[in-house]
């Protein structure tokens, strides 16, 4: 296991935080910043839903589990990519519970030495219990 991590830590939930409620103004500002003008994403009212990538705003209360923070300098990481799987749309008034788990840790060796990749999975659930998105955040550390 990279970094001599205890394998039991993989898959463990290390944070659960409720964020929101989401406002129409936030949804519209986010969509417009991406150049959106479609009414589904930019016109307040009963038909307004979040842009599909709005879910990346939610990061919970702690980004990494404590046991990992002790082993790597989290401030020097780079965002290596994301994988988003979408569920129910996010709507104004929703509160979003962010359930954070350490999903995967792996090592790659390149020309400049070893790199560690840490994948944090955020499962986002609204106040009705519907999953709105599962977001895997992949960070690279040297």
């Amino acid at each position, binding site marked *: 296991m990279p970094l001599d991590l205890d394998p039991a830590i993989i898959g463990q939930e290390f944070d659960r935080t409720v964020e929101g409620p989401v406002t129409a103004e936030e949804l519209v500002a*986010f969509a417009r*910043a*991406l150049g959106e003008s479609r009414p589904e994403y930019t016109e307040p009212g009963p038909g307004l839903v979040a*842009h*599909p990538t709005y879910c990346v*705003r939610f990061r919970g209360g702690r980004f990494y589990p404590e046991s990992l923070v002790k082993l790597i300098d989290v401030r020097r990481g780079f965002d290596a990519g*994301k994988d988003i*799987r979408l569920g129910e749309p996010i709507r104004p008034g929703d509160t979003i519970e962010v359930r954070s788990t350490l999903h995967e840790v792996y090592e790659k060796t390149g020309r400049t030495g070893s790199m560690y990749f840490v994948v944090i999975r955020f499962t986002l659930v609204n106040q009705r219990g519907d999953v709105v998105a599962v977001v895997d955040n992949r960070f690279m550390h040297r």
Partner: protein
Amino acid sequence: MAPRLPFDDVQEGDELAVRSLFLAKDQVRAYARASGQWSARFTDDDGARREGLPGMITPGNMSMGLLASFLEDWAGPGTLRRLGTTFRGLVLPDRTIRLCAAVTEKHDTTRSIELDVWLEGDEGERWVLGTATLALA
């Protein structure tokens, strides 16, 4: 809601019309503000240089957002089911970028399609690579 693209109108190998757009620094700042990512690396050239960057950069999340909008402009709002990306290079604002995608697979049972997607610079250098799943009509 606008109609979804019919599944039968799409073939494996189809390429979406490339979208070129000028990515202004003010748009990146607006995104940083709206997404809760207001930090020097995304908003200020001098602050970004102090972090060792060549200047302010575009958040990877914004690149994903632009790709998502590009796909849904083609297929209709609400069609995106999955988007996975790898951030391979720094996307610097104040330049023209190109959003690209091609259909790689069709699934008859779910009426969904798989695509390769990427964001590239003017000279074809691919800074963001990924795959997507869309659910069609």
